[in-house]
Structure formats: C-alpha cells, structure tokens
C-alpha cells in the first residue's frame, strides 16, 4: 500500500512550520512520528497535498521539571516517556501508560504530541491528560496559547488544534506518590484498547479523576462516577455508574452494551488500584 502523492517539506523551525501550514491551509498536514497518519495515508483515508515534517525541529523533545508540573515536549516519543526517570518518579501513571502503547517499534516512533493532536478516542495518552487536568500549549503564526484538556477534544479525530497550529508542549501536574490505576482490555498484546480506564487521585482536594479510552467518539471523563465518589460512595458503587451519561459507540470489537459493561468493570478495577 502506497500513499497518494504529496509534497514533502521538512521544517527546521516552528515559525517555518506554522507559516507553511498557514499558506497551504486544509491541504497541509503535520507529520510527527507518522504512526497514526501514515497508516491512514496508506489506506488513502488521508490524502494531504503537503506534508510538513516537524520531526527535526530542534527543542521539541524533552521532559522538564516545572515545579508543580512536568512539561513534556510534543515530539517526545512514547519510549522516551516510558524510560524517563523524571516521569517515572513524578508521573508514574504517564510512564506506565506510555510503556503499554502498541509495541516497541511503535513506541520508538510515536510521539505524545501526535497522540493528542490526532484526537482518536482509542488513544491512551489523551485519557491520562484528561484525568490529570493537563494543559496543552499550541503555537500558531500569531504566537502561543494554552488550552485546558477539558476543552481540547472536540469530536472524533477533531481537536482544538487549528489547521495552522502546532501542539508544542503538554503540561501535567506532578502526582508523586498519589494513587492511580490503568486498565486496558486488548485482544492481542500490541492492540489498541477495546475499552480502557484511567483513575487518578488528584492533589489538593483529594478527589479522584476517571477518564475513559475508546468508549465514545471522544476521550471522556466518567463524571457520574467521579461525583459518586465525591459524595461518599464506595469504589464499587461509583464504578457501577461509570457509563452514566456517557455516549457509547458499538463497533466490530464490541457492541454498545458490551462496551458499557467493560467500562463499569475496568473503572472498578482501576479505582481499586488507585484507592488502595
């Protein structure tokens, strides 16, 4: 399978990249690790006219200690995140989830920025960012802006990243020793989640956040279950409400009813781990 023809430009700087995106509009696509975009292009489900390769732009691959948070550069690969001692000690949930994505070859290429910007509800990292109330930094021709994780996912494969913007950094509050749980049901080890769940204790008010993977068209928080915990319900009672008010899709892998069931079961397991 060969992608349709396109023009390829390797950007050397963010300004050059956003300038190219501005000039080419909808016909242009950003290329990072290519592990979501190239499979779509090979299937001709994506047919960009211009690929703007941001993979060599210097200074976009890092994990930095920002005091109360870690700042992760958009081009940091899943493998780098999984192996980062800083992430391992301050955001063990992120290190663990990044280390479970796909397989080693996928983790060597795929980036956190690509995972977020792609907007696929089946991706694992968006649920982590959503649960931890992360902040996303976007850079366009006119400068940078910050977007709250709550406002980032707009629809299936649709995010707040404008066609001429580049996601440059993801900021996540440090977790330290706070409890967390991650559950992902797959058919084979390397597969995407049929359903996944993230549960994380948050600093400050001591509340617990729950986010769902591949349940509906966008990564979603299980607000009813979060509220139940807040109101004093047991983890099991809260898990029973994990799919309340959530839009749930059915597909080849799981019917809507099965997905609802999996959501409740996996949230229950994730909460058991997070709340020990």
């Amino acid at each position, binding site marked *: *399978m*060969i*992608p*349709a*023809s*396109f*023009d*390829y430009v*390797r950007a050397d700087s963010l300004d050059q990249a956003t300038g190219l995106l501005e000039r080419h509009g909808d016909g242009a696509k950003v*290329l990072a690790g*290519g*592990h979501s975009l*190239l*499979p779509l*292009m*090979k299937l001709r489900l994506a047919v960009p006219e211009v*690929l703007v*390769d941001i*993979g060599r732009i210097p200074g976009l691959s890092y994990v930095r200690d920002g005091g109360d948070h870690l700042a992760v550069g958009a081009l940091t690969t899943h*493998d780098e995140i999984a192996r980062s001692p800083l992430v391992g000690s301050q955001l063990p949930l992120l290190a663990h989830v990044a280390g479970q994505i*796909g*397989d*080693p*070859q*996928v983790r*060597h*290429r795929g980036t956190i920025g690509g995972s977020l910007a792609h907007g696929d509800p089946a991706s694992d990292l968006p649920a982590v960012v959503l649960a931890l109330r992360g902040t996303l930094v976007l850079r366009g021709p006119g400068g940078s802006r910050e977007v709250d994780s709550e406002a980032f996912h707009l629809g299936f494969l649709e995010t707040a990243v404008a066609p001429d913007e580049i996601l440059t950094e993801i900021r996540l509050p440090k977790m330290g020793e706070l409890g967390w749980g991650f559950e992902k049901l797959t058919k*084979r*080890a*390397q597969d995407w989640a049929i359903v996944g769940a993230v549960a994380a204790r948050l600093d400050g008010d001591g509340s617990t956040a729950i986010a769902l993977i591949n349940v509906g068209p966008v990564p979603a928080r299980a607000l009813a279950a979060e509220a139940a915990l807040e109101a004093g319900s047991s983890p099991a009672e809260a898990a029973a409400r994990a799919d309340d008010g959530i839009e749930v899709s059915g597909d080849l892998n799981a019917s809507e009813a099965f997905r609802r069931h999996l959501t409740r079961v996996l949230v229950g397991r994730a909460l058991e781990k997070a709340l020990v």
Partner: protein
Amino acid sequence: MEVTITLNGTECTHDVEPRTLLVYYIREAAGLKGTNIGCDTTSCGACTVLLDGRSVKSCTVLAAQAEGRTVTTIEGLAEADGTMHPVQRAFQEHHGLQCGYCTPGMVMAIVSMLAERGDHVLTEADVRLGLEGNLCRCTGYHNIVEAALAAARAPELRL
C-alpha cells in the same frame, strides 16, 4: 527527491518520490531484499530495521524521514568475513526459525532490545513482551525466545 541514508555503514543516495516508504527504499532503490514486507499495516514486524540503532517498522516510516540517518538491515549484521552476529548465531543454534519470513524482523527487533536493556538482565517475560510487535506463523515463538535469551548471554554482545 534525493534521499541520502547511511545504510549498513555505506552512505547511499537515491532519487525517490516523497511517498516512498523506507521499506521500498531499502528493497527497491537500494536493492537489499532481506527486509520483508508481511502485513504492510504496522502489525507484523517483518519489515523491522534499525533507525539510528532503534527498531522501527520500515513500512510505516517515509524514506524522507530517514534522510541523513543511519539504517541497519539484516544484511548489515554479519561481519565482512561472514561471521554471524550473535543474534543470528543464536537463531541458528536454537532453531529459531522455520520458513524464515519473520526472521529478519525478529532478529532486528532483538538486536534493538539487547541494545536498550542497559544493565537489566532480560527475563523470558521481558523478551516475550519485547517481541509483541513481531508475529511468527510457524515456530510458536518458543525457540525464538530461547535464541533471544541465549544472545542476551553472549559475552561479546555488550552494546
């Protein structure tokens, strides 16, 4: 466009279309047929090569993304006099292949795994997880895992 890659230690330049995938650059432009295409959908790992020393599925990387970088394929492992790389030798000694189709990708994935292990002593579980991106339809994996563990113990393999 011209794409220059250091392929198995030799710099080569080929004029290819931007849409050329690395695996086609290797097989067709450079004429090295050791790297196989299995699924063509990033699932099977038959096309695994090393890009700057790390395993990647070359059916899902553009040749243009490898511009100026180092790529190692199965042809680049043995020494000039034909002496096999320790991972290749372990596959032979432990009968780690049957039809051989998955083998180049398996070997490259294991070479990367061994390079990345640091001071960690690989367990059978590590090896099985580390090969989750490589499918074999013949061997049942057992001897592939044995070969990887044997190669991990090879004294000359401290990368």
